[in-house]
């Protein structure tokens, strides 16, 4: 990283919106949680974090307000390892994270890594966590090897790791050729329920043997992503729409697409767009029809030309002169007002399928399992994420509502297929007294 670049970084195209949409309680966060086979040594983890952060200059930053946009400034301090907060994915602020845009915390045998989406996406975060684990295991004296799957501390920093890949893959287009309509969503069913107080979130993790799940997917001639998406849609319909006898509703899933698989990029910053998968919920919905709809939507939205058009559109919006010269406080007001009027009811849930996290085999004796979670908010009360590490797939549900009907129904579908499920929860919906008495 050149000296000039080390001092400050522009936010990437997709990150620019996240600080503007953040409010007192909500922030676009996601987390990675790793369960180890033994208790986490907090002091060693602290040392590992201090060492690892030096390898990731794009993470070693603090968010600052500019005149026109937010920007990142190099952080001079050391990140801390915190005791995990009972409040899952608590807002990351300068007061509770020392100015960093991520938070590493631990509890018993679990390491939690929460990230503000402005700084990176799931792929970048996974690389950081893998490197952190590698350093941690090394400091613990375990025999581990990166196996070309980990950005180890000694490896050289490629300047392309902190590039804005949206800009490098941007093709200038005329305004009439932009696909603005593809970015707009249409009104869809919003999951309702009694909300938790004070940004509380309920989390349920379902762990399942990946091989069993893949076998069931093969039997149904679909992919893991299509299967989970379809079962989730069915669960929403069965538990929320059908019992309330609502008129026909569109269930729309907001699915992030990792652009690194389609465009050449090694960036550790954000480089993902999204696909909207929508179906009109009715009794005619079957697993087969849903998987084929999801397959079709994903096939359509992951074509290189389509994504290239979307990149051009989003970068054009950033480069649009009135947008550039508008002071930041006015941009924030405009974004918040437009979100208030146009942003709500545009998705039923966010569903992120991370796929297989490439962990070195040498980590296997020390890691029990690993999962991802995305924060839920009032506009999108339920999020679902699926990630596989080694032979275990973790399906994470994060919600801002108290009832667990969707998760219950989803689990029932899986167990009916004969898939073994192990479930954990933070029991946020259960009173303390009830937990203690029981």
């Amino acid at each position, binding site marked *: 990283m050149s000296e000039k670049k080390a001092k400050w970084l522009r936010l990437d195209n997709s990150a620019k919106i996240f600080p503007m949409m953040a409010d007192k309680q909500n922030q676009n966060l996601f987390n990675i949680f790793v369960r180890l086979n033994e208790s986490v040594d907090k002091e060693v983890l602290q040392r590992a974090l201090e060492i690892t952060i030096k390898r990731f200059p794009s993470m070693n930053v603090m968010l600052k307000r500019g005149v*026109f946009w937010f920007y990142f400034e190099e952080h001079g301090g050391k990140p801390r390892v915190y005791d995990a907060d009972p409040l899952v994915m608590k807002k990351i602020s300068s007061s509770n994270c020392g100015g960093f845009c991520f938070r590493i915390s631990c509890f018993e045998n679990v390491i939690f890594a929460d990230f503000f989406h402005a700084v990176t996406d799931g792929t970048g975060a996974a690389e950081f966590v893998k490197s952190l684990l590698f350093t941690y295991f090394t400091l613990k004296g375990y025999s581990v090897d990166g196996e070309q799957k980990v950005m180890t501390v000694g490896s050289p920093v490629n300047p392309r790791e902190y590039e804005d890949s949206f800009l490098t893959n941007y093709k200038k287009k005329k305004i009439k050729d932009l696909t603005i309509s593809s970015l707009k969503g249409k009104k869809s069913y919003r999951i309702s329920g009694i909300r938790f107080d004070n940004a509380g979130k309920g989390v349920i*993790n379902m762990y399942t043997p990946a091989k069993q799940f893949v076998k069931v997917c093969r039997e149904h001639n679909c992919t893991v992503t299509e299967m989970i998406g379809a079962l989730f849609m069915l669960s929403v319909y069965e538990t929320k729409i059908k019992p309330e006898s609502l008129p026909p509703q569109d269930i729309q899933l907001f699915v992030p697409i990792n652009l690194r698989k389609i465009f050449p990029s090694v960036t550790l910053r954000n480089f993902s767009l999204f696909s909207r998968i929508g179906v009109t919920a009715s009794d005619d919905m079957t697993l087969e029809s849903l998987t084929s709809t999801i397959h079709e939507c994903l096939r359509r939205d992951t074509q290189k030309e389509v994504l290239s058009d979307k990149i051009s559109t989003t970068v054009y919006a950033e480069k649009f002169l009135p947008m550039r010269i508008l002071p930041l406080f006015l941009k924030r007001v405009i974004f918040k007002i437009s979100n208030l009027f146009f942003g709500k009811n545009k998705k039923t849930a966010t569903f992120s399928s991370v796929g297989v996290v490439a962990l070195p085999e040498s980590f296997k004796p020390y890691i029990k399992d690993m999962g991802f979670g995305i924060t839920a908010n009032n506009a999108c009360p339920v999020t679902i994420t699926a990630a596989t590490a080694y032979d275990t797939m973790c399906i994470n549900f994060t919600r801002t509502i108290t009832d667990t009907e969707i998760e219950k129904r989803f689990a029932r579908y899986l167990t009916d297929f004969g898939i073994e499920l192990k479930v954990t929860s933070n029991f946020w919906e259960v009173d303390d007294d009830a937990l203690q008495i029981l």
Partner: protein
Amino acid sequence: MRCKFCNVEVDCKTHICPLCHEKLTTDENDEKLLPAFPPKTAKTERKKHTHFTLTNVYLAASTIIFLVCIAVNFGLHQPTKWCWMVGAILLYGFLTMRNTVLSSSSAWIKAFWQIVMISLIMWLAQVVFDDIMTDTYWLLDLALPIIIMLSVLTLGIISCALVRRNKALLYDTLFLSLIGFLPIIFYAVGLVQKVLASAICAGFCAAVIACVVIFARKEIVDEMERRLHW
């Protein structure tokens, strides 16, 4: 532990099923299980439900003081309605706490809001005490330039003291100094009658800008580069 209703295994230390909340059947291996998340503690709950924040206490106390002042002022049929001044000062205290003390905004924005708020209090004083203060031009002629100069001076001193730790303060001082030309602009458009204070204010701020540019040009260019996204 298994939930016989959901047909799932529960992989964390608990006695109830995460899905259906029914009681679980346990076996001897369950002792080895750990909780998956930190438990909600009484401390967390207390923290979540507290209403006794500094801001709320201040707000409650100021409301009581203001109501008492209104009662006294109107109850005694006093011709000067000084209670509005008390209300304005209490409101100023609240806004200072919110937008200056507890805010994470830039120093120049905080200083700018201070100038605006103090000027408004001065204006209200002119309205409330119009029987004593007959000359209405003192506000723009004298008060505003002095408030701006004091703000720039304060920020300048803070910048000098903390320049090693926070170079951004120099940029803030520079930006705030630009406001120092406002009174002279007011004079040019006829809003100000006596030029002396406005001219001194403009001269003072020009001197501050010159000092900052001469002694900290590199820091200022760096800061402007990142803030303006050059």
